[in-house]
């Protein structure tokens, strides 16, 4: 009937909460562009910094940005830094093997994406200065359903990852200091 006769010393609590949020206009437009095979960002009309993906404002000049400030971004760039993560097995973790996430400074007109996946390179050979290009999913397989209002630089579902272009590396010491 009851479990045990020892004192009860613990209690489990299973929390489960669902959130359904409207996608904000700039993220909707960003996701549409991804499905069309394009990366877009906003260029601040005041300071000229490029935000990828667009945020709808420049937090530095504290001005709002609009579709008029939209720029198409390059889908090539250089790895400016990386992390190799040995996954901790927390609840909901699906990763079991070490994986790499990289930051990429995009070619002109600029913009930077973080937490990107690298393809076709063993984890231990990811390096700063490596030239990479986007590997797009075929148009029919592009699904941006995972991209939400707080997905930051995610292009998941449209860009599968980034692979080496084969070009020579850029000097690592310069690249690492240049961009985050």
């Amino acid at each position, binding site marked *: 009937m009851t479990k045990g006769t020892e004192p*009860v010393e613990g*209690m489990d609590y299973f929390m489960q*909460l669902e959130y359904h949020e409207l996608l904000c206009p700039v993220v909707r437009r960003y996701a549409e562009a991804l499905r069309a095979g394009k990366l877009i960002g906003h260029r601040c009309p005041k300071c000229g910094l490029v935000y990828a993906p667009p945020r709808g404002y420049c937090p530095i000049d504290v001005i709002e940005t609009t579709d008029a400030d939209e720029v198409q971004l390059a889908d090539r760039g250089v790895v400016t830094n990386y992390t190799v993560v040995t996954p901790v097995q927390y609840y909901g973790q699906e990763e079991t093997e070490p994986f790499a996430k990289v930051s990429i400074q995009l070619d002109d007109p600029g913009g930077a994406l973080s937490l990107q996946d690298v393809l076709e390179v063993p984890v231990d050979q990811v390096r700063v200065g490596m030239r990479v290009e986007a590997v797009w999913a075929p148009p029919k397989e592009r699904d941006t359903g995972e991209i939400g209002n707080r997905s930051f630089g995610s292009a998941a579902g449209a860009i599968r990852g980034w692979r080496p272009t084969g070009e020579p590396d850029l000097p690592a010491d310069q690249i690492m200091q240049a961009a985050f």
Partner: protein
Amino acid sequence: MADEIPTTTHTIEFPYTRTLGPVFSAFLTGMRDGRILGIASRDGKILCPPTEWDPWTGDALEPTLTEVGPGGTVETWAWVETPTRKHPLHHPFAFALIKLDGADTALLHAVDAGTINAMETGMRVTPRWKDERIGHITDVEAFVPEALGA
């Protein structure tokens, strides 16, 4: 119009594991054993559910618990017509503050009375225990009107 806007969905879920300390350990052990326990406050009131410290003064309390109930009186109640998925019952029921016999404060719990017409402030209720108890506040599945028995 809003319905046409795509939504982004995310679920956060996690199985938390709580440790209890002496007071809640004793209280939930009691629940597992089919007994509802209270604690004496500094001025001698019996508090159920027990608190770890005197809620009025913050003073330490002696973690020796005493049995209260099982029956009690409904002090106030709310009729839940549409339960949420987090509620203890999945058909219409009442949440109530129940002053158990021998206690000086009221326990918040569910009352399974069938219909709102069966509910009344001052009514007598008694716990309906679950068959399988694990040491949890919901080991009492709900209180039921004393007239119906447990």
